[in-house]
Structure formats: structure tokens, C-alpha cells
């Protein structure tokens, strides 16, 4: 298959590889951590009612829209959203600049997410060497904070976090350089089965733990025991809706880039639903059965809740390290189990990282005519340069700013833009027909009005609620405890805006010189 320029485009080599790569994009660290905490804090078992409603009315429709957009753009040689939005809107001038967010956001996300993923690699190694074994929870927490803060040499030299970050980037660079089928797909074909294997072993170990502060059954009860009154609480419904974005990686532009490497008549409905189902399995079945039950067994419910609320990485890293280092039986087995946990999170992370890097790499190819190898090299150098800011200024909330504005609020904003363009500008009729091109699954007709009315209404309600209750106070930095962090947080925002502005300028320049006919100037290979 060739793009409209007559140059060959890369394609996925197999459907199973595509499903696993897309599932790898969706299954991330959050599946194993965010979901059980959200469920426990928002009604327990009853959380699943709004969760499944959000899955059917928000997650699945947006996922199908993104797949369809991506395949449609790929037909014209585009792998990124500026070109796709330009096509979908019939060449409206503003559309391609809005699409720049679909390149800048995943790129920024890639930078800080990969830094977090590199911590998992670090703790995989520390597990095998027994670096934190024999320490109680409080000292393991200090061990983690020393790792995260390069100026705290109490447990680690300042270079250690940087070393693991560089190693992770080098690994990702090698995978991404090999292309779609030779790199990303092969990583998914090896990584995803390994992830599921590790998760099953961990699940079996956690469910057979001897009772300590609680039993494993009490841990599961903590997550699943229903609180019926929560069903009348709007915050619970919005929490379930928000979870859908994180878990399915919606509103980022990564699904579109992956889907652009489909052939024009490849199915998107059944394949897309299959990736969503794989993600749900990883989240509901595996995610809910490992970390929280294990923490409840060792710490009891009140302390587990306190740890989960203290910091986003305290529970998955420090608490789980403390739990696994105290497993009954030989220490070597405990080290292996701890390694399985952190390496599982590392695999979940890198399969998402390669997806997050893909729109930026494709943009460099598409707009600047770079070869894939050169584009990957430039992306890794950019990640190293910007990532150093996180390495150095992490303790001042530099990463937390990006995580909120890109990884939380930005997803919903951008998904709303995508849906509006697809449904109201491209048109639901054309969109529906495009979605069913080569489809192996005919989407129930009810989804047509759902996509046109229910999903946008759901989205804009979520957006309005979050804007008032969270985004505005966060923007005004009302929750920042230490005033000395404020300049760093503003600088963090300035860097984000700067990256978006540079991407827009690159687009403007390349569009004016080679792409003003609406066609991609470079090969997307």
C-alpha cells in the first residue's frame, strides 16, 4: 500500500500484533493502580455501574472515532492530527493548528511518563539486588524519595535516577527505530503476554497471602463492597468517566497515529473493541486483584487509604516494595516476586511510551521530512533535554503540573475537540460510513445518536464540572503547600506552552512551503 505521494507506508504485520500494540498503548501503570483506588474511594462495587455506563457511552464511542480518524488520515498519508484535522474539516485554516495539540500533548506526556517508567526499571533492579529489603515502610519511602530527588543522597547517588532514565530512553529509541511492525509490534507481541503472565503469578501470590493486618478477602471486599448511596453522587459518575480517558488512552492522538498504519479497508470496529476489551480485562480482573489487596493485607484499610492519598507513587512503589520485602518464605523468592511487580509496571509503561512517542516522531517525518531513524534520535534527545527538568525539579512539582494539564485535564479537552470535529464538521453520516468501511462488526444503530448527542453531552458536562471544581483552583495554584515551588510550577507551564508554540511554528513553516495543497510533504515510513 502506498500513500498519496506514491511512497510506501508502513503497515502492521498482523492483526494480533495490532491488537496487542493498541492494548499496550492503553494498558499502563494506571490500570494496576488508579483503577482500584478509584473504585475503593467511589462506592466500591457500585462504582462499576457508572464505570460500565461510561465505558459504553464515552469510552467505546470515542475509541471508535479515534480509530476511524486515524485510518482515514492514513489514507492520505497522514499519521498525525494536524493533517487529519485538515482533511476532516475540508481544509479549514484553524483545524491543523488545533491538531498540533495532538502532537505536542503526547510528546510532553512521553517525556514525563517515560521518566516515571524508568523508576520501575530502577526498582526492578533494586528488587533483584535486595536494595530495600529489610527496611520498614517508612524507610522504604525514604529510599524512594532519595531516588526521586537527585539532591538527596541518603540512599542513592544523584546520578542513579538519571542513569535509569537514560537506559529507558536508549531502549525505547532502539525499539522505535525499527519501525511499526519491526519495533513497536514486536515489543507488544513479546511484552503483552509477559505482562499478563507476570500479573497472573502476582495475583495468585497475593490471593494466597497469609492473614496479617487483614486477609486477602478483606482486601477484595475493600474494593468491591458496594455503597449504594454513592450512585446518587455526581462526583462518582464523573470519577468513573474520567477513569475511562486514562484507561483507554483517549484524547491524546496516539490511537490515531497507530490507526493511520492500517490499510484503508482494514476493520476498525471489531479490532478497536478488542483492544478496549483487552484493556478492561487487565484493569478490572488483574488491576483490582494485586496492589490494593496486597497493601490491605499488610497495612490494613486505614493505612492503605492514607498511603494512597499521600502521593501518587507511594503506594505502587514504596508500599508494594515494603509488602514484597516482607513476604513469607525464602528472601530470594520474595525478590523475584517484587521484581515481577516492578517489571510488570515497566512493561506496561514502555508499551505506552512507544505509543506516546509515535505522534511526535511521525510529525518530524511528515512535516520536516526526517527519516525514521533521525526522527527517533531527535525525539529521544528532546525527551532527555526536557526530562532533565523533571529529574532536577521533580520535588518542586514540575512533573505534577504536566501530569495535571496534559495527563488529566488535557485529555478531556482534546477528546471534546476530536468528537466535535468528527461528529459536527466531518458529519456523523460520513463518519458512520467511514467507520464501517471494511468492518467485521456492524456497530448497533443506537450508537449513531449516542455519538452525536450523548457522548458530546457527557464530555462537555465532565469538562464543565472539572473546569469549575478542579482546573480553576489548580490553575490558581491553590493547593500548592510550599510557596517556594510556585516559580518552578509557572516555569513548568511555560515550557509546556513553549513546546506547543514551537510545534505550531514548525507546522506553519512546513505547511507554507510544501504542504499547502493539504498533502504531506514527507514520506511516513
Amino acid at each position, binding site marked *: 500500500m502506498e500513500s498519496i505521494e506514491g511512497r510506501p507506508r508502513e503497515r502492521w504485520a498482523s*492483526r*494480533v500484533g495490532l*491488537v496487542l500494540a493498541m492494548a499496550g498503548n492503553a494498558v499502563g501503570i494506571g490500570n494496576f493502580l488508579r483503577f482500584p483506588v478509584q473504585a475503593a474511594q467511589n462506592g*466500591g*462495587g*457500585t462504582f*462499576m455501574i457508572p464505570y*460500565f455506563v461510561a465505558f459504553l457511552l464515552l469510552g467505546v464511542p470515542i475509541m471508535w472515532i479515534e480509530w476511524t480518524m486515524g485510518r482515514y488520515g492514513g489514507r492520505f498519508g497522514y499519521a498525525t492530527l494536524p493533517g487529519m484535522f485538515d482533511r476532516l474539516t475540508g481544509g479549514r485554516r484553524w483545524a491543523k493548528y488545533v491538531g498540533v495539540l495532538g502532537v505536542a500533548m503526547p510528546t510532553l506526556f512521553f517525556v514525563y511518563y517515560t521518566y516515571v517508567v524508568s523508576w520501575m526499571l530502577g526498582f526492578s533492579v533494586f528488587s533483584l539486588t535486595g536494595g530495600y529489603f529489610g527496611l520498614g515502610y517508612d524507610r522504604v519511602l525514604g529510599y524512594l524519595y532519595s531516588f526521586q530527588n537527585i539532591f538527596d543522597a541518603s540512599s542513592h547517588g544523584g546520578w542513579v535516577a538519571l542513569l535509569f532514565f537514560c537506559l529507558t530512553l536508549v531502549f525505547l529509541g532502539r525499539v522505535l527505530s525499527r519501525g511499526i511492525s519491526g519495533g513497536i509490534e514486536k515489543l507488544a507481541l513479546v511484552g503483552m503476554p509477559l505482562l499478563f503472565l507476570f500479573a497472573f503469578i502476582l495475583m495468585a501470590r497475593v490471593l494466597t497471602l497469609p492473614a496479617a493486618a487483614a486477609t486477602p*478477602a*478483606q482486601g*477484595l*471486599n475493600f*474494593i*468491591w*463492597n*458496594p455503597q449504594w448511596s454513592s450512585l446518587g453522587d455526581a462526583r462518582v459518575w464523573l470519577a468513573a468517566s474520567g477513569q475511562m480517558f486514562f484507561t483507554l488512552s483517549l484524547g491524546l492522538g496516539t490511537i490515531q497515529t497507530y490507526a493511520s498504519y492500517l490499510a484503508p479497508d482494514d*476493520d476498525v470496529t*471489531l*479490532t478497536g*473493541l*478488542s483492544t478496549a*476489551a*483487552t484493556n*478492561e*480485562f487487565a*484493569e*478490572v*480482573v488483574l488491576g*483490582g486483584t494485586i496492589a490494593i489487596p496486597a497493601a490491605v493485607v499488610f497495612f490494613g484499610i486505614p493505612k492503605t487509604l492514607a498511603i494512597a492519598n499521600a502521593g501518587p507513587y507511594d503506594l505502587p512503589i514504596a508500599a508494594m516494595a515494603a509488602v514484597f520485602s516482607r513476604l513469607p518464605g525464602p528472601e530470594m523468592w520474595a525478590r523475584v516476586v517484587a521484581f515481577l511487580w516492578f517489571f510488570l509496571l515497566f512493561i506496561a509503561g514502555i508499551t505506552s511510551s512507544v505509543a506516546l512517542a509515535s505522534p511526535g516522531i511521525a510529525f518530524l517525518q511528515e512535516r520536516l521530512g526526517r527519516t525514521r531513524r533521525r526522527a527517533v534520535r531527535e525525539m529521544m534527545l528532546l525527551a532527555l533535554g526536557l526530562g532533565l527538568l523533571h529529574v532536577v525539579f521533580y520535588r518542586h512539582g514540575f512533573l505534577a503540573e504536566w501530569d495535571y494539564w496534559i495527563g488529566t485535564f488535557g485529555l478531556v479537552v482534546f477528546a471534546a475537540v476530536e468528537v466535535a470535529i468528527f461528529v459536527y464538521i466531518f458529519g456523523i453520516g460520513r463518519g458512520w460510513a467511514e467507520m464501517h468501511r471494511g468492518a*467485521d*462488526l456492524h456497530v448497533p444503530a443506537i450508537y449513531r445518536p449516542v455519538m452525536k448527542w450523548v457522548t458530546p453531552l457527557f464530555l462537555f458536562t465532565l469538562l464543565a464540572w472539572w473546569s469549575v471544581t478542579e482546573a480553576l483552583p489548580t490553575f490558581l495554584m491553590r493547593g500548592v503547600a510550599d510557596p517556594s515551588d510556585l516559580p518552578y510550577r509557572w516555569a513548568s507551564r511555560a515550557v509546556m506552552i513553549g513546546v506547543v508554540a514551537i510545534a505550531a511554528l514548525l507546522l506553519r513553516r512546513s505547511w507554507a512551503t510544501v504542504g499547502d495543497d493539504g498533502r504531506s510533504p514527507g514520506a511516513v515510513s
Partner: protein
Amino acid sequence: MTPVAVAFMAVSMAAVILLGSVCLYRVLRSSRHG
């Protein structure tokens, strides 16, 4: 675990396993025919 918690867990897990199995079956079937 309370019986209601067990029921919620079982139904939720069964739902995602069923969805995944049906999708996997249809993907494999269509791949074979395709």
C-alpha cells in the same frame, strides 16, 4: 467478603471476560477467513 461484594466482583469480571472472549473469537475467526 460480603455476598454482595462477591456478586459485584463476579459480575464485573465475568462481563469483561465475556466481552474479551467474544472479541477474540471473532477476530480469530475473521483473520482465518480473511
